[in-house]
């Protein structure tokens, strides 16, 4: 077992709609090791995205604690949390969410504008990030001039520009065709293997989940299944576990 990067202890997340209290996560506990690649699966409304948001520090639990590295993100002030996010988390969205008026270069540079890096250092880092995702020749292109797959690769470059320890991806292949989706998954695997990034990915796609080292299945806010690839290798295998988890 490696050192845990994420420690989630007895987390409850509730939303109040009018007078009704909706429990999305119900006493969830989970640990994710540093350098792991975890797929979060489960039916709609099971709490996957909520869990991802809590881990990424863009939402707060109603109760329970979340540690990422040395930081207890569940108790940080909003300002401290923003600073922490900019240094430690890279976020990849289903719909890429690039700023349409900025070029690929400028989109990737966005999180670096929050650092004290010089313009030359920022340029170096952006070029490196776009090089990693294979888009060095598309730096001056605007999102509208890129394909969906290319847009998502720019979004990944933006996520890794600050060299974060944790990458969180919310259905990163959900809006892509099979080939582009495959490219993105290969890229995420590479970031995990070569660059040692811990990846937590929400997905509905069994093929995407099969790329992960670990499958965590949520249902109605509780952990239903937690399968490791090496554990599964001796029995049904992760891909099969994924299919079972996806209800196939």
């Amino acid at each position, binding site marked *: 077992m490696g050192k845990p990067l994420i420690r989630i202890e007895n987390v409850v997340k509730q939303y109040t709609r009018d007078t009704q209290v909706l429990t999305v996560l119900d006493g969830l506990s989970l640990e994710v090791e540093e350098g792991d690649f975890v797929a979060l699966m489960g039916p709609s409304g099971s709490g996957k995205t909520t869990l991802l*948001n809590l881990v*990424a520090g*863009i*939402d707060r639990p109603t109760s329970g604690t979340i540690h990422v590295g040395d930081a207890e993100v569940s108790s940080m002030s*909003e*300002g401290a949390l*923003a*600073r922490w*996010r*900019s*240094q430690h988390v890279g*976020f990849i*969205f289903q719909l890429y*969410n690039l*700023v*349409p*008026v*900025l070029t690929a270069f*400028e989109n990737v540079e*966005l*999180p670096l*504008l*929050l650092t004290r890096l010089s313009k030359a250092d920022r340029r170096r880092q952006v070029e490196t990030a776009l090089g990693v995702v294979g888009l060095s020749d598309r730096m001056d292109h605007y999102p509208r001039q890129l394909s969906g797959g290319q847009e998502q690769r720019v979004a990944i470059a*933006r996520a890794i520009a600050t060299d974060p320890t944790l990458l969180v991806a919310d259905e990163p292949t959900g809006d892509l065709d099979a080939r582009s989706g495959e490219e993105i998954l290969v890229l995420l695997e590479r970031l995990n293997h070569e660059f040692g990034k811990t990846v937590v990915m929400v997905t509905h796609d069994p093929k995407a989940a099969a790329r992960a080292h670990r499958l965590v299945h949520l249902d109605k806010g509780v952990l239903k299944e937690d399968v490791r690839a090496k554990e599964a290798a001796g029995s049904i295998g992760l891909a099969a576990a994924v299919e079972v988890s996806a209800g196939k």
Partner: protein
Amino acid sequence: MKLLPLVFKNLFRKKTRSLLTIGSILLPLFVICILGTMLRALDSDPSNGKGMYRLIVRHKVSITNWLPAAYDPKIRQLPGVVEVLRMNWFGGSYVDQSARNQFARFSTSDADRFLKVFDEATVVEGSEKEWVDDRSGLLVGRLLMKKYGWKLGQKVTLKGDIYPVTLELTIRAVFEAPDETGVYFHHEAIEEALPRVKGFVGWYWIKTASLEATERIPAQLDAMFENSSFPTKTETEKEFQNGWVSMLGNVKLLVTSICTIIVFVILLIAANTMAMAARERVTEIAVLRTLGFRKRQILGLVLGESLLLSLFGGVLGVALYALLFPGFREAVANSPMGGFAAGMKLFPEILAVAFAVTVFVGLVAGLAPAVRSAQRSITDGLRQVG
């Protein structure tokens, strides 16, 4: 400052909308500058302070009532009086009664004293002596010479209305002064044709030796003629000008009210644009916050955009005003309100007010969308589609 390029790019994201909004700020700002200039011109002192040493003595009842010409030596003997000038409004017409041919026509019984009392004026063509020596001589403001293309020595015919007389006058001198929209000729020219007006004048101008004299003389002089058949009212040049302005009614309140309404309309337009811009970018702002942008940075981005939008409109409006001002001033000078142009200039305080209005509109219009954008939770923002 690193975020400024992003603010600029956001500003022109919807070019047509931004340009229309800039236009809708630019034009009202231009109008505010023009109205403000006119308002300020009412209070201005085109004589550059020399008017503080001038008094005007008129009949207590109205300026249309004459005063005896014989008051001259009595006024002259008052301590602090440097010079006295008897003046009269001729009115009448030049060529016809059209607006283009309206300008001030005065007669004076003391041509030789004219430039001593109005010492901000200088003769730039012809000579004072030629005008003083010629009873049918005409002293003309430079602007009128230019407007009508008159030449020195040219005959100008003025047809009277108050005085039923037609005068043929010769241009003997041209003067340069803050107000160059009048003509002056000898009162004798009227008196010769209409002997009944002899011995009367419209009003007196007094040049004083000091501010103390300017302050003291009015009460002293009015007391002197209080029980005569022709009681007087003596005022400073400024009070006299204000009297004319007050005849227009509460112009200042009217103009200020119009300007306030214009500012409010600009504010609504800019606020609407910013509200739309912020609404369209809910998800984008949530993404920025996910990347680590703080609330105050989001506030700064939206407010900065609003401020820049307003400044673009404001600066262009003021630039347009500065560019068109000489032409506007000339148009006023050539209109029946020609005398008003003397007090018009590019007042720095009007430019400052325009700039302040621009900043105010920018900040107030952007405040609500900026606060809303910064306060919205990231997860709510990410849930929005688009």
